[in-house]
């Protein structure tokens, strides 16, 4: 802490000594960047796309369906 200057930035609740010790000794896995603020996932159902397509009706209608 004594050798910190204005260019150092730490949050108040961070374990500063632990992080600096790990940095000085080259330890890995002590810190990590936060996860992305936005995550996009796609549900995968093995072999299901074709089965659903077979069951979809191919009839047409003159009314807009919901959704």
């Amino acid at each position, binding site marked *: 802490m004594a050798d910190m200057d204005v260019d150092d930035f730490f949050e108040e609740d961070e374990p500063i000594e632990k992080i600096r010790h790990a940095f000085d000794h080259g330890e890995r896995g002590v810190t990590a960047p936060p996860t992305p*603020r*936005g995550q*996009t996932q796609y549900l995968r159902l093995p072999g299901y796309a074709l089965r659903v397509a077979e069951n979809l009706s191919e009839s047409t209608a003159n009314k807009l369906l*919901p959704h």
Partner: protein
Amino acid sequence: MASPVEAHLVLCDAAVSDPSSGKVHMLGAGWSLTSSPTPPQAVVVLMKIPWDRSNTPLPVQVQLYDGDGKPVEISTQDGLVAITGQGTVEAGRPAGVPAGVMLDASFVLNVGPLPLPPGRYEWRLTFAELEQCAPFTAR
């Protein structure tokens, strides 16, 4: 005691979340009535994370339940599969942002067509200690 998280569930046709800002690009949002089998859909979770819970991994999960409150499971090549998505959200503290503000984050699950019989369903969100649901009807 940690401040409570906030979240909103939105059903739409498709969505993509921006990894850097947490903003979500949605198509066809706001429906609660759909056809059977269901067309492709997306579940969007818009989250507000309190300042004092930033830099902390928070679990998030969305899962589809039927009208009886049972998890929907689909038979696939790999056996029964629950319709669910889960992850971990950890909001960092951007430099210069005042202490105490709520931080934005988002989670999106895109789902293909499902052979759901007509009936009522709901997407349930579990985010940290928060639970919410977004019901819809397939006809």
